């Protein structure tokens, strides 16, 4: 020690003192280590010697295996009790991969007995890669009776292969409900870890499936049920011989939606081959009546593991069928934004209903010309006419007078640019433009010129169809913004007790009755003498609506938009928002048809079909070439 220390005497003594202290501490630590090991030894002695007899009897009788009993998943029905998701039982051929050295060879051998197609193989491969570590995986599902018999005769050859009766999920309505109802799929490692973190893993012993999207995912906690426990006696080979006791599983709760499946069906078909989305809401409750996203996909493909080929097709299709456009797609609202602008103008005292402007067909600001889509303009325009004829100039001026801050603050209360809080996952925020937003997003300041096109729902404006539907429902509802929800109630499988899902309205806007009346009158005017006139010709009810056309690409100054010259995917989106009956609305909706041009041409006729069916029970006439096409005015 001393040769290491070059310091003078005092510190040497200190160092030695410290070393002595350290050794004392080490001694204490050693004593502690010995004590703990002695305790462990004592525990081992207690278990292995004292309780040996008792515990080895238990081990002998371990034979008693505790098996989970998977619960039946709750079913999903629409508001009229029509089944949207249910279970049926079928036989599957399953392999326990952890016991098999060469899976491919085993599959080859099994395929000599029961047919295993290339699709089955690909799907099995995929399952193998992403499934939880233990348990058996299906190589073939839905065996026929003959296949079962054939395999039973050869069973002795394949100890690692078994036939099991399994519940399968089925979605009888297929692609029409693909986005709302969603689908289940096999539990993957991520979900497994998630379950473990939540302490729900024990309840999933014996369950192979979990809700992946839509209602199936959001209401997983209700649909799944409680796993039961079965004590079975097993022989020395681990096979169950008889059941000793059981705590039965509790089936998952059934989920009833506010959706009307026939309305959903009508709405989905109304789109034809077009892409787009439709959201229909009951304004007073926020219950969603229809939620369509076109194109859809067949959710049944996902149930027992989708094969990679189908997956790639869905995932890479330019039509993006997996995207739920209704709540994850965002679109500029176009002229459907004007009613909110009008309400802002009235509420903030910038306009009166009678005040008029002159619309020459353009608006000059900052040396730039903002054109009205109606060539030559609409002449003298008051608030009513500004909505009915959809004057752009009126709203260019208004946006300039209000200023971006006031616009953003006012319309945000309708839910634009924030999540509506619907009980489905994956809702997009959209973009409610404001100087703060632009600074956050682009690190740039706001230019006054950018405010102008905000007034007609263009510019950075971008909202989900769901937000548009909630906003128009808020007008229908006289300023009470509903909170949309897809589920009506959850029914306990045992007690049949119904737990209603009725969220309170998001907020009340406190709009003045006369302001609302002015805008509502104009919205009715749209369907009688305005841009929605042709689509709603001869309707047996009074409806209120607003057309919209949203630019997909910017058009340069002095350039004209000629539809023929624009590639299909860059054509304008067609929008329509509506509610009906106008005096006492029972339905409010937003429709967007991608790249379909004027709002009056594609979106409004779909709204008409949906309203006709919902209010009158009238089915759409068999498809005929759309006559509405001629004469359609823009916006």
């Amino acid at each position: 020690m001393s040769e290491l220390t070059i310091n003078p005497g005092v510190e040497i003594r200190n160092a030695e003192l410290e070393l002595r202290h350290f050794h004392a501490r080490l001694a204490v630590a050693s004593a502690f280590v010995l004590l703990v090991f002695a305790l462990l030894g004592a525990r081992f002695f207690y278990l292995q010697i004292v309780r040996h007899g008792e515990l080895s009897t238990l081990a002998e009788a371990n034979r008693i295996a505790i098996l989970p009993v998977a619960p039946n998943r709750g079913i999903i029905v629409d508001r009229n009790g029509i089944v949207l998701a249910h279970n049926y039982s079928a036989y599957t051929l399953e392999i326990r991969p952890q016991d098999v050295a060469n899976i491919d060879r085993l599959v080859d051998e099994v395929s000599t007995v029961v047919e295993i197609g290339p699709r089955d193989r690909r799907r099995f491969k995929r399952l193998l890669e992403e499934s939880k570590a233990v348990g058996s995986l299906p190589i073939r599902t839905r065996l026929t009776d003959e296949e079962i018999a054939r395999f039973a005769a050869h069973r002795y050859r394949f100890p690692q292969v078994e036939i099991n009766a399994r519940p399968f999920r089925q979605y009888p309505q297929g692609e029409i409900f693909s986005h709302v109802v969603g689908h289940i799929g096999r539990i993957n490692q991520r979900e497994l870890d998630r379950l473990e973190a939540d302490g729900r893993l024990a309840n999933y012993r014996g369950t192979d499936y979990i809700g992946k999207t839509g209602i199936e995912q959001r209401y997983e906690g209700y649909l799944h049920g409680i796993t039961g426990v079965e004590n079975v006696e097993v022989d020395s080979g681990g096979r169950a011989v008889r059941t000793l006791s059981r705590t039965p599983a509790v089936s998952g709760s059934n989920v009833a939606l506010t959706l009307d499946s026939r309305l959903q069906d009508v709405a989905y078909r109304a789109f034809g081959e077009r892409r787009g989305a439709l959201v229909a809401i009951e304004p007073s409750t926020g219950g969603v009546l229809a939620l369509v996203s076109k194109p859809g996909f067949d959710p049944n493909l996902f149930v027992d593991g989708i094969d990679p080929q189908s997956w790639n097709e869905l995932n890479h299709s330019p039509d993006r069928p997996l995207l739920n456009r209704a709540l994850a797609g965002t679109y500029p609202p176009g002229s459907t934004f004007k009613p909110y602008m009008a309400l802002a103008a009235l509420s903030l005292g910038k306009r009166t209903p009678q005040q008029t402007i002159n619309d020459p067909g353009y608006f000059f600001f900052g040396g730039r010309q903002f054109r009205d889509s109606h060539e030559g303009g609409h002449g003298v325009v008051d608030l009513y006419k500004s909505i009915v004829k959809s004057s752009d100039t009126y709203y260019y001026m208004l946006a300039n007078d209000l200023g971006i801050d006031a616009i953003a603050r006012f319309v945000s209360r309708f839910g634009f640019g924030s999540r509506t809080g619907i009980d489905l996952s994956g809702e997009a925020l959209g973009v409610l433009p404001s100087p703060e937003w632009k600074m956050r997003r682009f690190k740039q300041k706001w230019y006054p010129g950018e405010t102008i096109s905000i007034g007609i729902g263009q510019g950075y404006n971008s909202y989900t169809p769901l937000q548009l539907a909630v906003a128009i429902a808020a007008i229908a509802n006289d300023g009470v913004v509903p909170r949309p929800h897809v589920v009506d109630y959850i029914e306990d499988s045992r007690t049949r007790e119904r737990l209603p899902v009725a969220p309170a309205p998001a907020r009340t806007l406190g709009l003045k009755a006369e302001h609302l009346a002015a805008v509502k009158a104009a919205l009715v005017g749209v369907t009688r003498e305005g841009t929605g006139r042709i689509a709603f010709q001869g309707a047996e009810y009074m409806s209120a609506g607003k057309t919209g056309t949203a630019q997909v690409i910017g058009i340069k100054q002095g350039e004209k938009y000629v539809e023929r010259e624009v590639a299909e995917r860059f054509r304008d989106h067609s929008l329509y928002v509506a509610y009906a009956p106008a005096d006492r609305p029972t339905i409010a909706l937003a429709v967007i048809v991608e790249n379909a041009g004027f709002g009056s041409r594609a979106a409004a006729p779909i709204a008409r079909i949906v309203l006709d069916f919902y209010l009158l029970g009238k089915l759409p006439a068999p498809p005929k070439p759309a006559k509405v096409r001629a004469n359609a005015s823009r916006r």
Partner: protein
Amino acid sequence: MHPAVRRIPRLVTRHVDGLLLGLVLVLMVVGLFVLYSASNASAARVTAQSVNLLVALAVLWVFANIPPHYLLRLAAPLYVAGVLTLLGVALFGDVVHGARRWLDFGVTRIQPSELMKIAVPLALAWYLHRHEATLRLTNFVVATVMLIVPVALIARQPDLGTALLIAASGFFVLFLAGLSWRIMAGAVLAGLAAAPLVWSLLHDYQRQRVLTLIDPAQDPLGAGYHTIQSTIALGSGGWTGKGWLAGTQTHLDFIPERTTDFIFAVYAEEFGFAGNLVLLALLLLVIARGLFIAANAPTLFGRLLAGAITLTFFTYAVVNLGMVSGILPVVGIPLPLISYGGTALVSICLGFGILMSISTHKRLIQT
């Protein structure tokens, strides 16, 4: 033979502590045998684990050859980097399985809490070593803060198990440096007083684990199942066990995670009480050797670090054995050197490498 060539074996073994290495190797081999049985004679598992063992031994050798004063220099930057990444995780981390533990660097994701297992004792030993001549209460306060910051960040992730282990390793440094008994007693009392508060802060699943420990039957499909089955496995082993490859609990699939966290249940069932005593003795010898190295280390840094590494190893072993034999809660901590898995093995062997470095670099160090 060229003299340089003749020196190669000496160069390879110069910084290896033969006794410690021998004990580690014996435990590793025992582990492979148990793994073979636990995995139902899976050669693939044993091969994979052998690869893990080789990697771990390489890490051990590399660290044995790094002189302690390099580690001394590395301590502070490593600690700071660790705390910063923990902060990064808290602010921008990926939420995986509901816990925020990973930091995505684009190329790779790292789990900083793993790094802190070695960085914390290293930093504390470095700090106390720097103030060696004038250690007083303020130094201990600073060191405690240095410990609490990363522990709190990790506990928030939430990763209570790792947080507690790191807290323990840091505490060992403080304890060996001579933290006053009175303060420790005060801390224990304060801890007891704060217990109700801590209980209210725990996540539901963490409470469940504690409750399940008290009454395993409460949760027969979840954590309680593990305890019930591993207790039966242990108890049915008796004096000498059922023999290698003959454990019924094991081979009838009753023991969950039997190659990883619960591998000791397999061992105890097949080798009985006698086997357990042998295992305890082997572990005790490893710990004794570690403490011996600590006692003879030439610098305070070496002493504290060696002591803390050894006692941390002890803690891992005890927590695992206690968990499998049903006297500690089920936390996911493997049995060091025995359980299947690479990460824990490498960090344990890294610690042993440092131990060997401390024991074999004596002459080269100036205080």
